[in-house]
């Protein structure tokens, strides 16, 4: 036996994929998908994990990310500011796991010819579903009456107060992009009437278009915020808009917290100037104004519109696909076009 082994040489060891053979991707802070799928990325790319380093961020980037051509980021963690971009001289792609782009200095990227890829339409359905879920919850008091039942009050205090019918209500969609359109399509099936406000009129729909959000509010029973956060949309929904929406009006926000002037929203809710709200996003997450906890006509969600297993899996595939396309000089799967 020993002699056999002496004459047959062992097979050569399989080449280990050294992480330095893989393309580098700089990651400042782990995106939420990393909580579930980081190894899928680690297998394909050499992740430069800035958050794991004891070095201050600027030092880490200067010392370790000089040749990184691609970055993976999300809405959480440090903003991708001009300062940070300037520390990454080889950067040619910023891939964000969000649909929103408000955390990225788009001007700096454009000036440097850095491409951007985002989540595209990967979770438009999930976000639209949450918007509709929050709306039905507010109108029909789902969470409030579930609380009521669980506290044993149905047997002792009698029936819960009546809700409001969704059919026939006028829905004002703020931002008729991919998410806004999915929301509209769903609510039409409930017999709702859709109108919208957007930067530009959309030719592919016949819904009434309002050039200004205050007018939209005055002609709607519900406002659903589906737009991105920009300089123009920051605090766009203020007291004036809320008063136009009116005492029976309901607002749903699945965009970004800062699109609504939060202090004024809270005041309007507390004073009964509007009828209710369904909120997935807030100005200072995870801080939520305490006054809202006293209100039964408000439904609160922890920025979870995209947090489904299905969306995370799709997002993972999409981000890996974008990075692979980038490194093999193929077109990105979900590039953000300059508008």
């Amino acid at each position, binding site marked *: 036996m020993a002699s056999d082994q002496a004459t047959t040489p062992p097979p050569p060891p399989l080449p280990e994929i050294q992480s330095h053979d893989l393309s580098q991707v700089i990651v400042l802070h782990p995106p939420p998908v990393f909580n579930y799928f980081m190894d899928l990325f680690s297998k394909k790319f050499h992740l430069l994990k800035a958050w794991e380093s004891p070095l201050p961020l600027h030092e880490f980037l200067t010392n370790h990310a000089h040749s990184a051509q691609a970055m993976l980021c999300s809405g959480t963690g440090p903003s991708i500011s001009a300062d940070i971009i300037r520390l990454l001289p080889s950067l040619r792609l910023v891939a964000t796991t969000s649909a929103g782009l408000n955390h990225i200095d788009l001007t700096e990227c454009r000036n440097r010819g850095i491409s951007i890829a985002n989540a595209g339409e990967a979770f438009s359905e999930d976000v639209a579903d949450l918007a509709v879920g929050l709306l039905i*919850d507010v*109108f029909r008091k789902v969470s409030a*009456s579930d609380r009521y039942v669980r506290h044993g009050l*149905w047997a002792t205090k009698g*029936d819960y107060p*009546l809700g409001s019918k969704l059919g026939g209500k006028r829905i004002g969609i703020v931002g008729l992009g991919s998410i806004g359109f999915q929301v509209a399509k*769903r609510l039409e099936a409930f017999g709702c009437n859709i109108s919208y406000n957007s930067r530009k009129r959309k030719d592919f729909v016949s819904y009434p278009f309002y050039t200004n959000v205050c007018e939209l509010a005055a002609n709607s029973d519900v406002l659903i915020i589906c737009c991105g956060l920009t300089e123009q949309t920051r605090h766009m929904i203020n007291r004036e808009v809320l008063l136009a929406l009116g005492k029976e009006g309901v607002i749903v926000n699945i965009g970004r917290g800062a699109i609504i002037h939060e202090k004024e929203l809270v005041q309007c809710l507390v004073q009964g100037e509007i009828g209710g709200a369904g909120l997935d996003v807030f100005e200072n997450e995870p801080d939520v104004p305490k006054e809202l906890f006293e209100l039964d006509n408000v439904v609160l969600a922890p920025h*979870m519109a995209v947090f*489904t297993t299905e*969306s995370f899996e799709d997002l993972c595939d999409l981000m890996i696909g974008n990075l692979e396309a980038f490194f093999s000089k193929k077109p990105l799967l979900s590039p953000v076009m300059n508008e």
Partner: protein
Amino acid sequence: MESIGVLMLIPMNTYLEQELQKRYNLFKLWTAPQKPQFIKEHANSIRAVVGNAGAGADAELIEALPRLEIVSSFSVGVDKIDLAKCREKGIRVTNTPDVLTEDVADLAIGLMLAVLRRLCESDRYVRSGKWKKGDYKLTTKFSGKTVGIIGLGRIGMAVAKRAEAFNCPICYYSRTEKSDTKYKYYPSVVELASNCQILVVACPLTEETQHIVNREVMNALGPKGVLINIGRGPHVDEPELVSALVEGRLGGAGLDVYEHEPEVPEELFGLENVVLLPHVGSGTVETRKVMADLVLGNLEAHFLNKPLLTPLV
């Protein structure tokens, strides 16, 4: 008209009560200290009974009211009314179909979203301050899930129409296959449950449909399946439902109705994959007003010898 006696069985709607009081000699059964005595005392003047999902004219009550001509239910479901006895005695029966279809269907979808996306649980998560410690976990996508409907009547069809807008494939079980629909038919509830992810009860409660959702059906629906009950509590074997949920054999449930309302099994209170509503399917200001007007309209038509608006018998 004031001399016409109308017996209202339980409180159900202030507006309806006030209008009945204005137009008729209204007897409110729930205010009576001794119900059988109360009925005996007023039996000779009671010509109409107004009930709802919670209380109806059963055989005993019908027998005790020799002058009863019409039973008008503030509901679409008439499982609490002895229809056979009414037919036998020539007593008219009306209900409130169509006007509440949309609200019930809206709520069915609301329950699906609330269960799959954990809306109530995550609202609790925010209110309790837990969000400061970390994100909520991943939930399950609703769009695209297969929805199975037991009973493709008005409400079943309205649920299907809404679910289709979420790209949900629709399948159904019915006593007989419907020729005018494109949805996939299954000849048994167990087969339906095996082939869908969300099962909705939307049929009337009869002797045949009692416990139509039993242990076998729940096992077929499975650990990733969700049961939505917007029908009647007795459609579902409630103790079996509780053990299926507690043991994880059933993935979740959205319930608006229970076998012994307003009692709800307390074992369900601690489960995060369950949403519990206090029978609010038609519970909107708008719809309850329309339902009340329909009850009033039917009674008026009857006592004026005109055709009833929404007769069942």
